[in-house]
């Protein structure tokens, strides 16, 4: 398998080239610009047969994607931050219409104040839109997950976004193992959708749906979300079996004997693993749960994985502005509510606007957690890492 030095953006663009979607409609935004810029050069160089639609905004980009998807095309786009926010209205339409569009997303904070660096606020703002959300830890993960996302989206008929941490993954180079074009094509198979405007018999897409049917259609969407974890798991298992690597919905690192679990998403998982090794060398029984999928929320998997935990340290790279803490914290606690005996939780918001997080900082919060675990009580359920008071 050829190994190439690629940034996250290059890896995602390469996956797109091998997928060769029928339609890509996109608008540039830092730090995701390169993905579609590189892809546009593939189009110009004749390396793909994609119809590339340059548009005047992200709202138009995703709208064109929905139309093309309804017409039965395999559709992809790329965006970030304000771009995803501008797509917001149409994200719900894509989900409701069950259009299996795949977005290569790069996580970036939201304005104001304006900032181009990484946090998870943008995709967290869309977590209720009915899209599957996959968070990559590195470029290899991003490349593999984009390929898997096509299969997943086109099996459960739900749009899917794969995201990388802005600049940290999107612009950093890493050795990435690239599959053969044919391997990718064989894995994704021919395009599948729930319906097509050119499928034969005439259909109407997007009619008015009032009190008497809307509820049922939303219930269908909930069911698709509820059952999609099985597909996510199956697609990953097949990928693993064929290509020797994969990404579980939740990845457990040194958790077997751990009574203290750290939870994180994205590139911070790599840093956390080193911090955990350090703490383990000091005899602390701590492990990591990397959430690879945030939507649908893998609550059953988490219940099982956290069944032996006494203390959970959550690292959230976004806030909910609810005064309840970050989304991983809020949802994990809700998932664990019925769990006996009670697990203690502490949430740390970190890295907003791209602020760095290092091994020492994670080690420090693990130490704090150890103390609270011994005391049997959490002093501050919500705190911050790397914030000046």
């Amino acid at each position: 398998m050829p190994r190439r030095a690629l940034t996250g953006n290059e890896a995602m663009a390469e996956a797109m080239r091998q997928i060769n979607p029928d339609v890509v409609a996109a608008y540039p935004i830092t730090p995701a610009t390169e993905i579609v810029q590189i892809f546009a050069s593939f189009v110009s160089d004749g390396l793909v047969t994609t119809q590339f639609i340059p548009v005047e905004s992200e709202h138009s980009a995703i709208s064109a994607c929905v139309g093309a998807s309804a017409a039965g095309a395999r559709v992809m786009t790329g965006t970030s931050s304000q771009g995803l926010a501008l797509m917001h209205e149409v994200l719900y339409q894509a989900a409701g219409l069950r259009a299996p569009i795949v977005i290569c997303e790069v996580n970036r904070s939201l304005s104001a104040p304006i900032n181009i660096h990484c946090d998870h606020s943008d995709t967290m703002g869309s977590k209720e839109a009915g899209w599957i959300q996959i968070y990559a830890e590195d470029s290899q993960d991003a490349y593999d997950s984009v390929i898997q996302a096509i299969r997943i989206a086109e099996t459960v008929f739900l749009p899917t976004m794969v995201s990388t941490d802005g600049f940290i993954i999107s612009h950093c180079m890493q050795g990435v193992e690239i599959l053969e074009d044919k391997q990718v094509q064989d894995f994704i198979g021919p395009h599948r959708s729930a319906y097509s405007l050119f499928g034969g018999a005439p259909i109407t897409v997007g009619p008015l749906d009032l009190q008497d049917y809307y509820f049922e259609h939303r219930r269908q969407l909930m069911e698709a979300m509820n059952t999609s974890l099985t597909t996510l798991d199956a697609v990953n298992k097949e990928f693993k079996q064929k290509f020797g690597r994969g990404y579980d919905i939740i990845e457990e690192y040194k958790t077997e004997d751990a009574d203290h679990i750290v939870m994180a998403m994205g590139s911070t998982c790599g840093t956390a693993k080193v911090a955990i090794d350090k703490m383990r060398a000091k005899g602390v029984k701590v492990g990591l749960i990397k959430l690879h999928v945030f939507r649908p929320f893998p609550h059953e998997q988490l219940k099982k994985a956290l069944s032996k935990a006494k203390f959970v340290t959550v690292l959230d790279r976004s806030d909910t502005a609810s005064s309840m803490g970050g989304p991983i914290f809020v949802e994990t606690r809700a998932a664990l509510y019925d769990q006996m005996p009670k697990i203690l939780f502490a949430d740390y918001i970190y890295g907003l606007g791209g602020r760095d997080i290092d091994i020492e900082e994670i080690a420090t919060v693990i130490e704090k957690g150890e103390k609270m675990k011994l005391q049997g009580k959490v002093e501050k359920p919500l705190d911050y890492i790397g914030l000046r008071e």
Partner: protein
Amino acid sequence: MTKKGWKDLPTGGIITKAGSALDFKTGDWRSEKPIWDKEKCTSCLMCFIYCPDSSIQVKDGKMTGIDYDHCKGCGICAKECPVKVIKMEMERR
């Protein structure tokens, strides 16, 4: 008509039959109903011109009745009728 449950509806809220708008009775939310006095009507067709839902039925230049499947009960016909032979009544269902 029995309505289908969520498990039996087509995915994505699409409509799989062409021309199904014919089956959609748009007047079912009417709260008032126009009652037409056929004997006193002069067939001037003012109601036909004003009705926003094309619910005044006309044949050979004469008014023949009201299409209650689509009439929304707005009362414009009653208001515009020069000889006041359309009266609005509360709808009873």
